[in-house]
């Protein structure tokens, strides 16, 4: 019987670049920046690393295929290096590879590094969708983008729960306003300006009903983690952060082809349930201290709160309005600003989320510090609402 990896792996060092429009920085420079912070934080040398996982999603506009770009940029000394890609869960997937390798006892120390250079496409938003899903899908898929596909969650959510469009837009705006407030406190965030609910509601529509501020930033950036076997962790630092759960769930096709209700994301539900079981969490709303979830769009955060069992089905609006997810609320969500405000260099995002949880657990989150957090949860959603891969990582002291 599999036991999971609870408390078998510790994070002993992390690094994260400032996210944003890094026109002047190459992917190599971003990788070196995140990596240097991580190994200095861990107090190790690169020669101590046994194997590396490189996370990049859009290799065409980034560093190309394989992990060679990583090993060459960092001049890693002929160690094992693997590139992983799982849409927006890519960074979490890289961390998963590194964690499983040390949990298996194959290595003492591993590196996970995610990098994405999204601002070299020549247009706003993520790279054009139609060439990303293979040669058959491009013949049959609608003329779609990520905002539109997630907007369809909002259309259906509003319809199912009988929420008038202006009321729904207001609910979503409160989500983005909160994340901008948190991001404004974060020197590494991409979008550091507070915006009001009214500004958000009145912003230009990107894909009805989502407006500009319902969409996350598209950014350049890199983030890295150094992991080791739990029993070795204290030899590196007194406050290592332990991995409590690490779960991924990929669509079965059932949602898109058979029965998706487009008001929730089924993979998140599966990954979360398994993660809670792995971590021994019975009541996530009470036990999880804080979360960084995949708020690629405001509506994604809304339904994720329900999928993670933070809010009851159809009731997230009440929690949003009560300020439950604010930095000062019962369960702060996106304390670092989230994808919304911190930005979303796809391959780096999962590791950026882990970076915030790590810093919060160590009490190093400055003005954003949450009081005595015990468990931090990160969530990525790669793909589109009905076809995707969801990751959940739970970390704690």
């Amino acid at each position: 019987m599999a036991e999971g990896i609870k408390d078998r792996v510790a994070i002993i060092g992390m690094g994260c670049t400032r996210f944003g429009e890094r026109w002047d920085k190459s992917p190599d420079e971003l990788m070196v920046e995140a990596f240097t912070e991580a190994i200095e934080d861990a107090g190790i040398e690169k020669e101590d690393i046994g194997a590396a996982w490189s996370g990049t999603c859009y290799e065409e506009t980034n560093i190309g295929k394989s992990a060679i770009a990583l090993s060459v940029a960092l001049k890693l000394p002929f160690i094992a290096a693997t590139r992983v890609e799982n849409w927006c869960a890519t960074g979490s997937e890289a961390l998963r590879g590194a964690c499983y390798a040390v949990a298996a006892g194959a290595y003492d120390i591993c590196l996970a590094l995610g990098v994405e250079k999204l601002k070299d496409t020549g247009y706003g938003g993520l790279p054009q969708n139609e060439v990303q899903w293979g040669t058959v899908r491009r013949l049959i898929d609608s003329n779609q983008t990520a905002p539109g596909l997630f907007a369809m969650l909002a259309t259906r959510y509003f319809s199912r729960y009988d929420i008038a469009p202006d009321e729904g837009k207001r609910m979503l705006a409160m989500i983005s306003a909160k994340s901008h407030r948190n991001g404004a406190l974060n020197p590494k965030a991409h979008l550091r300006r507070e915006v009001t609910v009214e500004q958000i509601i009145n912003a230009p529509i990107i894909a009805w009903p989502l407006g500009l501020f319902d969409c996350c930033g598209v950014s350049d950036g890199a983030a890295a983690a150094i992991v080791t076997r739990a029993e070795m962790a204290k030899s590196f630092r007194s406050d290592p952060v332990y991995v409590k759960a690490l779960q991924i769930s990929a669509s079965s096709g059932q949602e898109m082809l058979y029965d998706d209700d487009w008001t929730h994301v089924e993979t998140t539900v599966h990954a979360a349930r398994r993660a809670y079981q792995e971590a021994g969490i019975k009541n996530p709303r009470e036990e999880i201290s804080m979360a960084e979830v995949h708020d690629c769009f405001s509506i994604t955060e809304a339904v994720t709160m329900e999928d993670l069992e933070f809010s009851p089905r159809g009731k997230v609006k009440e929690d949003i309005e009560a300020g439950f997810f604010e930095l000062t609320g019962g369960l702060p969500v996106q304390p670092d600003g989230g994808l919304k405000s911190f930005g979303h260099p796809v391959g780096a995002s999962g590791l950026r989320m882990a970076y915030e949880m790590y810093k919060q657990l160590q009490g190093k989150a400055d003005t954003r510090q949450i009081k005595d957090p015990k468990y931090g949860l990160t969530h990525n959603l790669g793909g589109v609402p009905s076809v995707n891969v969801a990751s959940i990582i739970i970390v704690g002291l």
Partner: protein
Amino acid sequence: MVGITSCGAYIPLLRISRKSISSATGWLGPATGLPGEKAVANYDEDSLTMAVAAAIDCLNGFDREKIDDLCLATTTSPYRERQGAVIIATALDLRPDIRTADFSNSIKSGTTALLSAFDAIKAGSAKSVMVCASDSRQGKAGSSQEQSCGDGAAALLIGDGEAIATLEGHYSLSYDFVDYWRAEGDRFDRSWEDRWIRDIGYSKFIPEAISGLLNKYNLDIKDFAKVVYPCLYPREHAAIGKKLGAEPSQIQEQLFTTVGDTGTAYSLMMLVGALEESKTGDKILVVSYGNGCDALFLQVTEGIQKARDSRGISKHLTSKKDLDSYEKYASFRDLLAIDTGRRGEEVGATQLSTLWRERRMVLGLCGSKCKRCGTPQYPRQVVCANPGCGAVGEMEVYRFSDKKGHLFTYTGDNLAPSPNPPSIYGVVVFEGGGRYNFDLTDCELDSLEVGMPVEMSFRRKYRDAVRGIHGYFWKATPGRA
């Protein structure tokens, strides 16, 4: 009985008033101001998509498995080499062991295709032939053709079964009369002087063809309930009838002020309109025009009473939306280069071996139906998506193009590059099962709501100018009334 067993038509939803065209391009030359409006193919429509729509209207419950031949008449095929008829046959999901042919290079080829179909039935080489005629001809900005040409299609099913009208006779004229022409590589027609076309073309050939037919079968013009013929010049249209001794009530309205000259489809669309108004025993005379004429003598049978309820001409005529902007019209017809941004430049290559393998799925909108649990699914699957089933390799082909559905959720996307933003798409859930996310067309974002009924329409999904590919697929539309 050899005859027409079913008929259908298609007129695109969009219309533009000729006044709008004049006010945009009138400065270019002497006023060509023509009356009324014309039908305009949407940005995602062309001769092939309109032909498919007309064919679907014509099929209207007929068993498509029984079709032996399919012909397309058009002068505006998107391909020089790649048959239009076979694309239509694939879209209609017809049997592969059929004969297909394109009739082209003259706007009279619609009736020529029809006569060939009658010949095939008479000769016993086919039992059922689908004849499609469709055109979307374009004039240069400021030309009279820009105003006169409209877009539309007709489809007729010819067979020896129960006919709604039988073919009693025909008479053809063929003249190398060069009134309009388009040479290899030309995008637009060139033309000779209007007065010559009017006086020596229409005004001579149509009476000559009609007289030829009347003499051949010893008939009088008064024997016909409807006389159907085109004439680009509205005043002359009436004069031709008068000269032949026909009463105005006998002359079929030529759709010029509502649709425009639809080329190969023109006379056949008028014929479909005439059949809609006809009764048992009516004789109909149909004449086409273009490098001569074909004249056909048809007799309406009792079958007309049972003729199924297609959208035909009359319903398509009343279901319309005014395209109030000439600039939009010009961009839809590719007369005006529009900016779709850097994002719009990223057209993925069409792997033709992939398209071949998936032709029924892509062009025919066929998915799978699980033989074990009966669940329809799109796109086609090997393993059943029903989690309670999961059967492997027990799928049969299941066609979605003729299934109705409802809109489960939707959006209007301003980020996606579109010739007509926002890009509207949504999840369609089909009656009987199956669902997918499709583009929506012929609609406005504001008119949509969750749960509304939709139907599927064959459209041009993309044009890959670099590689010379017109990509076709199906979109959802709110049904035409």
